[in-house]
């Protein structure tokens, strides 16, 4: 919490915004610039020694940071939409409480205006997100500032431009900048989820691949439900999805192009293939292939024709997931009698068991954040299911949630959250937990859902 003077330094200064370290391709028509000081508005740099930051520590007491997101200035309808998406993202992250707008002492706060900090202090807001959203033809521009209310300083000043059809992405990018500054973590709101939409009775369940924004908006179905589809996974570009489908005969791994709808069978094998996963560079696909009673893990070079067997022996070896640098693979195997987690070289060999707690460990996924190495897993113990994380050496196990049935974690692009599915009373839904165990929230889906996979940040 900052306690510096509310006085504004006399010198005008470019906004002290944190850089949102992403590129925006021309195709998405999104443009990001750092927002300079508006005319007549002087901006104070944030003193590095007194940054407003929320601290989220496992085990320690945790309180979400109260923030205010008033109506933005500019085009009223667009401003309302963007502010609402930003507020919802911040709230869904679990690290922020968005104070009730009915408590606000002023209405619209635009990007070109110095907030009256006393009004926001009075209602207990520690940070204020204010902005202006304007339209010029089909182009939408958002200028957004994040203020440290008690410090009286600007933390973020950012300007994002987008085509009219990408307003939701624009809002997520703005929210990412705010989240990133206030938490010190990378943003993750500008991302998508691929999952399996479920309907019909359990005995004849209809499953469709579906894709949506991380917050449940823009749901689009990728298959029609005639065939059983399972375990979709994003490529690093987010443009391709590897998954398993029951076609003619035994189920196989396919790759679907999200934009064109084209799909390819991966390889031409006599046996069932399943549990696919892309390498971090997108060049390799690993998956399990069944032969008789055993499943082993194979790697296929997607550009060429190389195929390599990574595990061998009489066991079920499955659910491979790469370390972020691509050098190692975590997977589950029952080679020791029950399902446990193992780490091996990405080239195969040298598998070392890492799970030693009670119960069975399954569905390991490696966090994409190289600075905070975690492996998330499903654990079956004492008749129930748990979702947890551990370090890649197997230490530091932490259970995030447990219940009748919870399964299949997938990491957010910033490695701070896992999404998984949880079944209660026959209904399966997607849930979100942060790696400290402080946050547990249901994710909006059109109906029953399972097998979520989080995309990388969009490009």
């Amino acid at each position, binding site marked *: 919490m900052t306690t510096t003077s509310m006085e504004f330094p006399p010198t005008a200064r470019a906004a002290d915004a944190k850089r949102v370290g992403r590129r925006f391709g021309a195709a998405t028509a999104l443009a990001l610039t750092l927002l300079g000081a508006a005319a007549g508005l002087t901006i104070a740099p944030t003193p590095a020694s007194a940054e407003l930051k929320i601290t989220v520590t496992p085990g320690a007491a945790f309180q979400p940071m109260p923030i205010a997101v008033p109506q933005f200035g500019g085009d009223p309808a667009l401003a309302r939409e963007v502010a609402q998406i930003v507020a919802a993202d911040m709230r869904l992250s679990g690290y922020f409480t968005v104070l009730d707008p009915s408590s606000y002492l002023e209405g619209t706060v635009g990007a070109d205006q110095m907030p009256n900090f006393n009004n926001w202090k009075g209602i207990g807001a520690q940070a204020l997100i204010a902005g202006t959203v304007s339209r010029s033809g089909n182009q939408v521009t958002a200028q957004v500032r994040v203020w440290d209310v008690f410090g009286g300083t600007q933390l973020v000043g950012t300007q994002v431009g987008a085509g009219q059809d990408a307003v939701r992405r624009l809002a997520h990018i703005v929210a990412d900048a705010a989240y990133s500054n206030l938490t010190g973590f990378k943003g993750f709101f500008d991302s998508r989820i691929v999952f399996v939409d479920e309907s019909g009775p359990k005995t004849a369940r209809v499953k469709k691949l579906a894709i949506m924004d991380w917050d449940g908006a823009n749901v689009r179905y990728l298959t029609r439900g*005639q065939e059983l589809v*399972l375990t979709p996974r994003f490529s690093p570009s987010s443009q391709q999805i590897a998954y398993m489908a029951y076609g003619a005969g035994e189920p196989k791994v396919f790759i679907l192009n999200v934009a064109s709808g084209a799909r390819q*069978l991966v390889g031409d094998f006599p046996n069932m293939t399943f549990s696919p996963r892309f390498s971090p560079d997108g060049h390799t696909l690993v998956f399990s292939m069944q032969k008789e009673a055993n499943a082993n893990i194979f790697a296929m070079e997607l550009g060429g024709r190389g*195929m390599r067997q990574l595990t061998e022996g009489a066991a*079920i070896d499955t659910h491979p997931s790469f370390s972020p640098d691509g050098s190692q693979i975590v997977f589950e195997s029952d080679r020791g009698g029950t399902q446990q987690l193992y780490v091996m070289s990405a080239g195969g060999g040298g598998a070392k068991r890492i799970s030693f707690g009670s119960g069975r460990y399954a*569905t390991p996924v490696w966090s994409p954040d190289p600075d905070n190495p975690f492996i998330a897993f499903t654990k079956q113990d004492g008749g129930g299911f748990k979702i947890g994380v551990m370090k890649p050496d197997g230490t530091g196990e932490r259970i995030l949630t447990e219940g009748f049935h919870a399964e299949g974690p997938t990491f957010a692009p910033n490695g701070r959250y896992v999404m998984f599915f949880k079944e209660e009373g026959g209904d399966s839904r997607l849930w979100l937990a942060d790696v400290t165990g402080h946050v547990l929230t249901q994710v909006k889906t059109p109906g029953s859902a399972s097998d979520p996979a989080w995309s990388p940040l969009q490009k």
Partner: protein
Amino acid sequence: MFSSIALGRGFKFAAVLATTLTLGACASQQDSAGDGAGGLGGAGAATPGSQQDFVVNVGDRVFFTVDSTDLTTEARSTLDRQAAWLARYPRYSVTVEGHADERGTREYNIALGARRAAATRDYLMARGVSSTRLKTISYGKERPVAVCDAENCWNQNRRAVTVLGGAM
């Protein structure tokens, strides 16, 4: 190494798959009816050599204990009857479906179902059913026949079902 099944924007291939799955679903429903007492009108109603005869008088499925692929004594005697029946009616091809209960993770259960199907197929082969007549497929935990939250129905889902196919 990609095979050349590339699809256009449409879902033509998916439509072909749908046909297959629909047939599978019909077969499953018949299987389910076979579970119930008198579901198919009793043994006497089945024409010898018919699918109904196989389901009702022979028994089309065997059950497994938790996380096991071992064939129980009861399972072996069912498979002995299946093998004898298949020897008598050589016109059928056979797909052995392996299934798991819901109390496991998805990928593992797919592999476990494949193990159960393989164990069942191997037993039938050892009892003289030609490998050329036999195929296997695993449905993992995707196609339960009984839905509830208790062991007394999960044990119905841990199964291998011998599904008769068309003429060879």
